[in-house]
């Protein structure tokens, strides 16, 4: 018999956990006591939201399960935003929360909250451990569920007296999982795959629309092979950035609300969409009724509930993207389609690319334009860095101007749109990939939502870089107010803000500032070369907007700004 908290450390080891993020508290003290002797890195963040986003960033950068820990009550409720964020973007995560001791559950005890109930709609699955002997099976199940099928966060709510109970556990003979209702479909239906191959071989104007599912299933190579073999242009979602090299001639970048004009025109005019690992989100499709009106749609996803959720699909394929793509390429080779039939379409797409490039603006007043910073960052890092983003204009500029080349190196809160995500996610990503430069492309508003994690970066020496595109606005909302609310800037001017350079220095990190374009490159070079956490305060053109843009509820071909229509 062993103390359950110690057994949990053995299970962590068995599941390959290298790092956990969290904040201690009364009901997780047994767990933290066991962590002191465990063979893994235990990162104390300054807020539970920092812990859960860091676990998320770690998971996205590594492909492994991220682990975060919080105590009962407020600790657990502080995780909720991050759990919901991981749920929306299908991030494998195990969140462990303390709960009050079993005899007082349900009595409104000190720091009691119904964590199981609060998190129900935003978890892949959850457990309240009521029998200590079930803990080993539950914890193994949690890791298994988090990383298989469509990944997602799994919550384990653990009463304090369970953690101190004595239980049996043999790491060489762990308990059997008991999940009779869980059987993710990996292999796509062969007949559907043959039909998809035929449709691809016959299409005159095909498009690939790919998303985060490709990255999760590690299917980038297969997707590249398909695109190259069948000569099909590729557009991706925000979370798909990096699955296909965006400097490849076949890449059309991101589609949707702030996508490229050429991606949106191509999607609107194509005759076949091969959609894989995507969920036809409203930010990607715009008005569904006018989305790709003439196109046949093939939709591949591991989650059957995503198929035909938002619009009708002609050829549904439920299965793992990597398996389905591999099999599809084989089928397509048998048909040996002629590449010539696409030539007029490829010429048309190329014409759109030439006619409507993303604008690289120069400011007449000599101020820094955001895209200039991002393009310089790309040059200085040769596009090899991991980029995380905050949410808002900074995120969309990053999506537009950062040409992602590799999977797992563009990390952004896509579905939930969580401000404050990028910086802690960057910490997690840096711990997953210490060999790579990790930069959070931030806005001044978002960064202030989790800026206390500077202390975490400094204390564990996690040399993350933060590039704030500082316009002293909650910029995306301000942009909408400019366009749709008659420039009434309600609650979006945040001119009272800290001196970010001094803020970084106050925490023991480095701080730099650039106010003119000619200072940008030097600041980047110095900050990125340092082996300390560093913050860069780029004072950008205050009212620079994100162009092009599709107004909410419009067709994606109906774009404002950013290259003439």
């Amino acid at each position, binding site marked *: 018999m062993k103390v359950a908290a110690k057994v949990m450390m053995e299970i962590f080891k068995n599941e390959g956990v290298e790092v956990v993020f969290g904040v201690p508290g009364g009901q997780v003290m047994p767990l933290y006591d066991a962590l002191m002797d465990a063979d893994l890195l235990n990162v104390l963040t300054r807020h539970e939201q920092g812990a859960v986003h860091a676990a998320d960033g770690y998971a996205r950068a590594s492909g492994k399960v991220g682990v975060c820990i919080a105590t009962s009550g407020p600790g657990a409720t502080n995780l909720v935003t991050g759990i919901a964020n991981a749920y929306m973007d299908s991030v494998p995560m195990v969140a462990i929360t303390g709960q009050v001791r079993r005899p007082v559950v349900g009595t409104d005890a000190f720091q009691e909250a119904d964590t*199981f109930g609060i998190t*129900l709609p935003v978890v892949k*699955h959850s457990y309240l451990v009521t029998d200590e002997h079930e803990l080993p099976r539950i914890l193994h199940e949690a890791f298994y569920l988090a990383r298989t099928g469509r990944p997602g966060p799994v919550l384990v709510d653990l009463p304090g007296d369970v953690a101190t109970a004595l239980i049996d556990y043999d790491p060489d003979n762990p308990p059997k999982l008991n999940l009779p209702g869980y059987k993710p479909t990996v292999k796509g239906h062969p007949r559907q795959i043959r039909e998809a191959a035929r449709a691809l071989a016959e299409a005159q104007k095909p498009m690939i629309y790919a998303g985060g599912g490709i990255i999760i299933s590690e299917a980038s190579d297969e997707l590249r092979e398909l695109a190259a073999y069948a000569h099909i242009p590729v557009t991706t979602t925000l979370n798909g950035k990096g699955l296909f090299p965006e400097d490849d001639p076949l890449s059309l970048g991101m589609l949707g609300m702030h996508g490229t004009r050429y991606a949106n025109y191509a999607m609107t005019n194509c005759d076949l969409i091969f959609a894989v690992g995507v969920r036809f989100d409203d930010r990607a499709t715009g008005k569904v009724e006018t989305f790709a009106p003439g196109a046949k749609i093939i939709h591949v996803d591991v989650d059957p509930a995503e198929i035909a959720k938002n619009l009708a699909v002609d050829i549904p394929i439920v299965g793992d993207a990597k398996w389905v793509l591999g099999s599809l390429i084989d089928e397509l080779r048998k048909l040996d389609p002629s590449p010539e039939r696409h030539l007029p379409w490829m010429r048309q797409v190329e014409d759109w690319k030439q006619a409507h490039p993303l604008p690289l603006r120069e400011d007449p007043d000599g101020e820094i334009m955001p895209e200039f910073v991002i393009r310089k960052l790309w040059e200085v890092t040769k596009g090899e860095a991991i980029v995380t983003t905050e949410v808002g204009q900074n995120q969309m500029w990053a999506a537009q101007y950062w040409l992602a080349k590799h999977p797992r190196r563009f990390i952004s809160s896509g579905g939930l749109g969580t401000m404050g995500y990028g910086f802690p996610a960057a910490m997690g990503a840096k711990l997953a990939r210490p060999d790579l430069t990790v930069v959070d492309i931030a806005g001044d508003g978002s960064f202030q939502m989790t800026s206390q994690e500077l202390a975490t970066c400094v204390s564990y020496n996690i040399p993350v870089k933060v590039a704030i595109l500082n316009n002293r606005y909650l910029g995306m909302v301000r942009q909408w107010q400019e366009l749709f609310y008659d420039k009434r800037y309600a609650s979006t001017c945040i001119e009272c803000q800290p001196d970010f350079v001094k803020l970084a220095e106050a925490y023991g990190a480095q701080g730099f500032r650039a106010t003119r374009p000619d200072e940008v490159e030097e600041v980047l070079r110095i900050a990125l070369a340092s082996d300390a956490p560093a913050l860069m305060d780029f004072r950008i053109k205050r009212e620079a907007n994100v162009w092009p843009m599709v107004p909410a509820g419009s067709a994606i071909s109906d774009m404002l700004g950013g290259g003439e229509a």
Partner: protein
Amino acid sequence: MKHTLSVLVENKPGVLVRISGLFARRGFNIDSLAVGETEDPMLSRVTISVDGQDQPIEQVTKQLHKLINVIKITDLDPNSSVTRELVLIKVHATSETRSEIIQVVEIFRAKIIDVSASTLIVEVTGTKDKIEGIISLLRPFGLVEVVRTGKIAISRGRKRT
């Protein structure tokens, strides 16, 4: 269109709230819901009666399938399944009306399971039509209260639900 979803689930705490929460979140109003252990004590059967178009019902069914504790879902075809509901009806009864009520009860092959000076409790089992029929006939006597179990259903013939 009415659908009867028969959902086989693990008999564990929290399963019901996952199911009902999912319906609420996706904007469905559940007409009735009945739960009970099956022949295997590890499993429970949830019978959900819900109104909706086929496409949204298919979507909610897929979402239900994603719940880890859900094992099997059947959208029961009314032609190849049998449905029943048990209802307890407390109705006002005076010495003048009592025999008339008893006649109604007999016609519907219902039972009287409690008698007091001013009320009768009627137990009736049947399909929705039968239940609504007896309720409408008893209503003029003065319904005190009506308690329903919600619909349960099972496939006809050898096939398992």
